[in-house]
């Protein structure tokens, strides 16, 4: 079975998107297509608009102009529930009340699949069990969120978006507050979702080398504009890093798998 041509059939598409905060536009007239079944990393310095772009795509931020298309249909013309069945969103450092049990958070992921007065169905239960299994949280299901480590907590939130069974996942800095082992946990999980389930994942990441190792495509942004876009091999270059981060960098082949490995030498003058 041949994969669909991802360039003509993007899962998500931003067309001439302008967005930002009142009186402070961050992004103006930006175009971006996210290929189906890929792991895309959004990379750039703080304030470059990568989180703003993700929030705009996830309809957490209103568009000043342009449109976001989901499977070719404008997201703005769909109900929030309809969108939630197709796209799972994980905000940056999400918060929930103290004392909430993991399973109760995960169960909320079934919200978009339930009718107004619909009862809890076996399919709902199965989706939650699968989400717990995928994130390795079966034994922690009844623990309260505040008793978990940062990595476990983040996995619980990811489990909620997995219970949603949406084909596309948007994650805003899913690894930022985690220690190294837990960062790899989350990235491995995301990568396996893409490889084995054909999910489409877009994540804002901070570590360029992790992005180069895990992502299929990298979108580098600076000042609200896309500077480089494509596979790590073509985007993680000394020129692009210099232009985006203002850093003098050497790029070598990673001894593990040959993906680009960046060594920051110093700030560019």
């Amino acid at each position, binding site marked *: 079975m041949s994969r669909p041509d991802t360039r003509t059939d993007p899962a998500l598409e931003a067309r001439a998107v302008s967005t930002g905060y009142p009186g402070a536009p961050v992004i103006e007239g930006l175009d971006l297509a996210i290929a189906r079944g890929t792991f895309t990393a959004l990379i750039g310095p703080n304030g470059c608009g990568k989180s703003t772009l993700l929030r705009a795509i996830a309809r957490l931020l209103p568009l000043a102009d342009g449109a976001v298309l989901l499977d070719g249909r404008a997201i703005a013309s769909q109900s929030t529930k309809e969108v939630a069945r197709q796209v799972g969103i994980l905000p940056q450092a999400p918060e929930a*009340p103290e004392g909430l049990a993991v399973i109760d958070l995960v169960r*909320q992921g079934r*919200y978009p699949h339930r009718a107004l007065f619909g009862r809890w169905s076996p399919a709902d239960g199965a989706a939650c069990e699968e989400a717990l299994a995928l994130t*390795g949280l079966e034994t922690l299901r009844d623990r309260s969120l505040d008793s978990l480590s940062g990595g476990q907590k983040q996995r619980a939130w990811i489990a909620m978006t997995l219970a949603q069974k949406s084909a596309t996942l948007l994650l805003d800095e899913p690894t930022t507050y985690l220690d190294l082992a837990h960062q790899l946990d989350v990235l491995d999980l995301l990568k396996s979702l893409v490889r*084995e389930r054909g999910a489409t994942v877009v994540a804002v990441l901070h570590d360029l080398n992790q992005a180069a190792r895990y992502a299929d495509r990298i979108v580098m942004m600076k000042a609200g504009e896309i500077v480089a876009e494509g596979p790590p091999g073509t985007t993680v270059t000394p020129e692009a890093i210099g232009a985006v981060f203002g850093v003098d960098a050497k790029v070598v082949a990673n001894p593990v798998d040959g993906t680009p490995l960046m060594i920051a030498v110093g700030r560019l003058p």
Partner: protein
Amino acid sequence: MKLDRPLPAGSRPHQTLPIDPRAAALAVLTAGLALTAMWAVTIGPTRIPASDIIAAVTRFDASHDHLVIATVRVPRVLAGIIAGAALAVAGAIMQAVTNNPLASPGLLGVNAGASFGVVMALTLWPPLPTSTYVWAAFAGAAVAATIVYSLGSMGVTGATPVKLALAGAIVSAFVASLTSAVLIFDKTTLDAIRFWSVGSLAGRSMTTIASVSPYILAGLAAAMLTRRQITTLSLGADVARTVGQNLVLWRAVAAVTVVLLAGSAVAVAGPIGFVGLVVPHAVRLLTGLDYRWILPFCAVGGALLVTGSDALARSLLPERELPVGITMALIGAPFFVYLARYRIGRSR
């Protein structure tokens, strides 16, 4: 964290007991309410044995005792039940929607707004039947809630617990002064509502109860039908947005429910404070964070607290008419201090 890991054998998703312990606890609490209501009817200047109460219902004979039961005691107990249930459920919904442990109809100015509406209506067009001035209570509650929420949401941080509580305190104080100003110049109205204005169950007529009950039942039904939405709202904007809840719609539905419940409770029993704050917190200790259980527990618990404390005050101080609003303040104020000291500090 591997994708291909099968579910462990024998891990059954839901090992449920034959009866949910929460359902059993709710049944016990409801039985407690029934017994308390029965006891409350026996208390008064003349002690009426419980057997007579049943007789008054089954074989009403218009004797003095039966008349007292039908026109004084039962309405008083019913007023306590509906006002208590309505205020506690309204408080629970407000705490869920604002993600704010300090939210309650009393603290966020809704009760004060409803009282002002009633006092204005009674001053301008006396004498009004309850079925009419309950609408003034709804209007006052809605206006006060809107002002408090707008004031409390000002600034970039949005509606934080402390800002909302401050806005509620300011609006409550201001509206209470307006109410006092109106009453100072209108001795007739003041005399008529002296007890009501601090929250009282005394002198309620069956007509009053009957004209307000439909609104309270509608509010309670709305709360129970939307309790799953309220649970999702209570988990905060992050969860609600991720799972695709229409926040504007469901916050509006919740606000209308609160106005209906708190407005009619104030119309029947005046602004009884603390019920909407104390009961949801006590209930959460028992049920956890699931509003599908919190709301029914609050309805029964609120009714029990208000009827019980009114009955207790009447049995301890038989010669005095102590308004239930005062009794509730005696119970609620120490609880509020406990809450501010131990529970809110941790969650901020």
